[in-house]
């Protein structure tokens, strides 16, 4: 009887989050043009990098240990995984805090962090879908040489590292947004600066291992490397199993750090929250 009750409770909780996912999907379809423009921008950014690297590494040459197929796979792959790893609705948390909308959710029987995790699901699905369309257009019309990974273990490990990257970025982004508790009038500047650093150090512009060895060694200890560069390097088969497991361990460490940081900041923030204008 107790077990049945627990199962019902769990199902009711899940229903709540499913409802959040459904509503977020509907929100996207209200602002369709906005979303299309957003994806068009991502496609243009991809084209810049694609042509740059195509010019830098002509067919038959190898620079920084990358031939044309490897680098183009890296750039196109980054574009796909970036669309769902570095996209998180948690960017809007700051707005809710600074406008006082947060009060509504503090009164509701829903976990605030869980709600934002649920909101991320449709965001990532839609971004992934449109990103695949963008990359497919390049594959169809420009026919670049790319590497198709066929080792099931490597593919499995790539998926694991991508999931870890998503979780890591969620907590990182959520923590950044919580700065709104202390600087409600200045929510965008810290994020603007942080995103420039994160995107660059994650390897969105180029593979990080082309940097001088000392710099790259340091970057491997930071969390950003595990957002884009690490999953792509796993996919390209450039790492040994040992290196992959060390990378996964470091990712888990940073997830733990940012998870605890997000929780602590939220707890502290709610204590100093005054809900202006509400």
């Amino acid at each position, binding site marked *: 009887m107790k077990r049945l009750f627990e199962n019902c409770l769990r199902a009711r909780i899940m229903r709540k989050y499913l409802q959040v996912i459904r509503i977020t999907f509907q929100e996207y379809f209200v602002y369709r*043009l*906005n979303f299309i*423009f*957003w994806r*068009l*921008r991502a496609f*243009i*950014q991809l*084209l*810049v990098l694609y*042509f*740059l690297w*195509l*010019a*830098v590494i002509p067919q038959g040459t190898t*620079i*920084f240990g990358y031939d044309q197929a490897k680098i183009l796979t890296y750039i196109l792959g980054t574009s796909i995984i970036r669309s769902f790893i570095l996209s998180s609705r948690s960017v809007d948390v700051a707005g809710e805090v600074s406008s006082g909308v947060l009060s509504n959710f503090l009164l509701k029987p829903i976990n605030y962090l869980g709600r934002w995790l649920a909101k991320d699901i449709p965001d990532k699905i839609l971004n992934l879908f449109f990103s695949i369309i963008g990359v497919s257009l390049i594959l169809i019309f420009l026919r670049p040489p790319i590497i198709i990974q066929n080792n099931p273990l490597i593919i499995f490990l790539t998926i694991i590292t991508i999931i870890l990257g998503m979780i890591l970025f969620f907590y990182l982004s959520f923590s950044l947004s919580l700065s709104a508790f202390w*600087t409600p*009038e*200045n929510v*965008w*500047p*810290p994020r*603007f*600066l942080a995103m*420039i*650093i994160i995107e*660059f150090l994650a390897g969105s*512009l*180029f593979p990080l291992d*082309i*940097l001088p060895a000392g710099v790259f060694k340091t970057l491997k200890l930071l969390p950003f490397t595990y957002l884009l560069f690490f999953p792509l390097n796993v996919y390209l088969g450039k790492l040994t199993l040992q290196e992959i497991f060390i990378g996964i361990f470091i990712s888990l460490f940073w997830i733990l750090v940012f998870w605890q940081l997000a929780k602590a900041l939220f707890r502290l923030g709610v204590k100093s929250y005054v809900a202006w204008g509400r």
Partner: protein
Amino acid sequence: MKVFKKYLKVWLKLTALAFSIDLSNRFTAIFAITGKVIRFLFFLGFLFLLVGRTETLAGYDLYQVVFFFLTFNLIDILIQFFLRGVYYFRGLIVSGDFDLVLVKPINPLFRSLFQRTDAYDFLTFIALIVYMIIFIATGNLVITPLGVILYLVLIISSFILGLAFHIGFLAFGILTTEIENIVWIYRDLSSMGRIPIDVYREPLRTFLTVVVPVAVIVTFPAKALMGLLSWQWVVFSLVMSGLFLFVSLRFWKYALTQYSSASS
């Protein structure tokens, strides 16, 4: 002359107000300026790393590639510094406050374009100019007096082209209330000029020269300074600027006739 003085006075007043707003919050100012500088340094470092190893990019050496990037930044910052007001235009339209602009004894297009000057970009502009002077003085670019004159003329021409695009965005904003995204798409397209346009393949290169003339805006001035641009392309650039400005002004006039004064 009297009209010019009047508008200059208005612009100076608007700029003074914008500077006091932007610099009143030191926290925002520090983060925003640091972000812009870091973004610039990251890409510059990337170019040094990349072309330093490959020695050339689409036939250009490291100094030339970096100069293309510096010119891109110069034009981008100039446009952002003067025309930041375009980003605030949607607010005027959706709130109906554009009515208040229309009834004032000042050209509504001038007011909409120049309503906000970007103080942060002024500071980064100064830093960029200093760096460009040092770079040209210490680099191995071959520069002639004619090249310098053409460079300055084409920078002005590029600004006029950028202005034409922004007038078009305002008109588009009146018709659709959608403006921010289209500005960002323009900025993404113009960011293709961070590297020499010769890197891109056809038909993209033609698209970036004729349809969305990023090449004309960004690449041509740098090529002119280095003596790599024929006079036909200089004329083409000036004609394009005039043509785009003419079309954008017509579009603006048409859009004004469609303004329906929302919410008021």
